[in-house]
C-alpha cells in the first residue's frame, strides 16, 4: 500500500460514514414525530449528503482512475464501502435514530476538529466546513437524548434500550490499522486512539444529564471499516444504486 492508496481508503471511510448515514436519516423524510423534526432531519441528511459529495470528489481525485464522486457513491460493491457498522443500522424508532446520531455526532465533532489540523489541505478544508454542520447535529441529537432520557418513563426506557443496543457498534468508530499508521506519520490522519477517552467522557456527560446509564460489558462488533458489513447494507445499496444499475451509464 502506497500513500495514495492509504489516503484513498482513509477518505472513503469519512465519505461513506456521511453517505450511508445521510441515506438512513433521509428515510425519515415525511415520517417524523413532529413537523419541526421533519425539517431538522431532512436538513441533517442534506448536510451529510453534501459532506459525502465533497469527500468522494476528493477520493476520486486521489484514486486517479477517472472515476467521479457519483461512480464511487453508486457503483461500488458492498464490500468496497468503508463506513462503520453503526451508520448502516436501521432507523428503528425515533429514539434509536437519535441514539445512533448522538454516538456518531460526538465522534464526528472530535474527529473533524482533529482533521482541520491535517497536513492535507483538502481534507482540512472539508473538515472545517463539515465541523460547523456537525456541531448543530450534535446539539440536536444530544438535546433529544436528554429529552427522551429525562422525559417520561416510557421514553426513558426506550432510549435506554436504544443506547444499550447500539453500544456494540461504538468502538468501531475508533478503528485504526496500517492506513492510519501511514497517514499519521505525515500528519494527515487524526489519532483516533487519543479521541476515544474524550468521546467516552462526552457521551457519559450527556447520558448522565439524561439520567441514562452507560452500558458495560458489551461485546464490540467490528467489520465496516474493512468491508465486512451487516446484512442491512445490501438492501440499502440496492435501493440507493437502483437507478445507476437499472439504467447504466446514463446522465441525470
Amino acid at each position, binding site marked *: 500500500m502506497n500513500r495514495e492508496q492509504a489516503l484513498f481508503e482513509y477518505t472513503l471511510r469519512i465519505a461513506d460514514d456521511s453517505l450511508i448515514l445521510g441515506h438512513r436519516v*433521509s428515510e425519515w423524510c415525511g415520517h417524523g414525530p413532529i413537523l419541526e423534526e421533519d425539517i431538522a432531519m431532512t436538513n441533517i441528511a442534506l448536510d451529510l449528503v453534501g459532506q459525502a459529495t465533497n469527500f468522494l470528489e476528493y477520493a476520486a481525485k486521489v484514486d486517479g482512475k477517472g472515476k467521479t464522486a457519483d461512480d464511487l457513491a453508486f457503483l461500488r460493491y458492498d464490500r468496497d464501502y468503508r463506513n462503520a457498522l453503526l451508520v448502516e443500522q436501521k432507523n428503528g424508532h425515533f429514539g434509536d435514530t437519535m441514539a445512533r446520531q448522538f454516538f456518531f455526532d460526538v465522534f464526528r465533532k472530535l474527529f473533524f476538529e482533529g482533521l482541520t489540523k491535517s497536513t492535507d489541505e483538502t481534507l482540512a478544508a472539508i473538515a472545517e466546513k463539515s465541523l460547523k454542520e456537525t456541531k448543530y447535529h450534535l446539539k440536536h441529537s444530544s438535546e433529544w437524548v436528554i429529552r427522551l432520557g429525562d422525559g417520561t418513563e416510557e421514553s426513558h426506557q426506550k432510549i435506554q434500550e436504544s443506547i444499550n443496543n447500539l453500544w456494540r457498534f461504538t468502538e468501531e468508530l475508533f478503528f485504526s490499522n496500517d492506513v492510519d499508521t501511514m497517514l499519521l506519520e505525515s500528519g494527515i490522519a487524526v489519532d483516533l486512539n487519543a479521541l476515544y477517552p474524550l468521546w467516552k467522557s462526552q457521551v457519559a456527560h450527556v447520558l448522565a444529564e439524561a439520567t441514562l446509564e452507560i452500558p458495560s460489558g458489551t461485546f464490540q462488533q467490528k467489520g465496516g471499516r474493512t468491508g465486512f458489513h451487516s446484512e442491512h447494507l445490501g438492501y440499502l445499496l440496492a435501493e440507493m444504486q437502483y437507478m445507476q444499475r437499472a439504467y447504466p451509464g446514463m446522465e441525470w
Partner: protein
Amino acid sequence: MKNLSLEEKEREFQAKIDADQKIEPNDWMPDEYRKTLIRQISQHAHSEIVGMLPEGNWITRAPNLRRKAVLLAKVQDEAGHGLYLYSAAETLGSDREKTIDDLNAGIAKYSSIFNYPTVTWADMGTIGWLVDGAAIMNQVPLCRCSYGPYARAMVRVCKEESFHQRQGFEIVMKLAQGTPEQKALAQESLNRWWWPALMMFGPNDANSKHTAQSMKWKIKRETNDELRQKFVDITVPQAEMIGLTIPDADLKWNEERQSYDFGAINWDEFMNVVQGNGPCNKERIAARREAKENGLWVREAANAFAEKRKARQAS
C-alpha cells in the same frame, strides 16, 4: 370605540378590502371570511405536508448525489411551507394539532394531485415542472390576498416554488435530451400527470361553489378557469421546446383568442380522487397517521421534559 352594528362592521370590512388594505389577525372579520381562510390555508398546509410523501419516495433512489441533495432541499422547503401555513392558520384561531387530526381522520382535504403515485424517477421532474408550476400559478395571486399573514407567507413560498419548478423542468429536459429510454420515461410521466395537473385548478368556474365569495373578499384574485388557461398557455411551449407531446388530441392554438384550446377534463376522475378513491389516498393518510401515532411517545417526552425543566428553573 363606537358600537357598530353587524351590517356596519361588514360594510367597513368590505370597504377596506375594496381599497386593497390588508386584514390583520386582530381586525374584525366576518365569521365566514375567517372560516373560509382557515379552510383554505389548512388545506394548503396539508397539501405541503402530504406532498412530501410522493417526492420523499425517491430521495433514497435519486440517481446521483446532486439530484439527491436538490430533492432533499426541495422536500425540506415543503415542510417549511407547511409550517408557515399552519402558523398563518393559527393567527385565525385554528389549532395546528387539531387540523392535523382532521387530516388524519380523512375530514380535511388536501390537493388531490398527491394521491397519484410516483413510480419512476421522471415523476420527480414532472411534479416539479407541472405540479409546482400549477401551484405557482395558483399562489402568485395569493401574494395579493386580502389576509395579511397568508399573503406574506405566500411571497416566500412562491420564491421557493419557482426554484422547484425550474429544477423539475431541468430534470425533465435532461431526460428528454437523453437516451431513448430516458425520453420514454419523460413522456410516460407527462402522460400520467398532465390531466391531474389541470385538475389542480379546481372545478370549472360554473361549478365552483366558493369562487364568487372568495373573489369578492379578495382571498382569490383569479378564477379557476383563468388560471388553468394561463398554465396551459405557458406549459405547452415548454413541452414543445424539449420535444415532448402533451397527451391531448384536442389541444390546438386558437389564433383569435391568442390562447390554446384544450380537451375536456374528466371531472368524474377528479371527484373520485377527491372522494378518497385515488390510487394512493389510503396510503398517504395511513403514512401521516402512522407518523403521528409513532411520534406520540416522543412528543409526550418532549412535553414532560419541558415541564420538568420549567419546574427546576422555578425552584
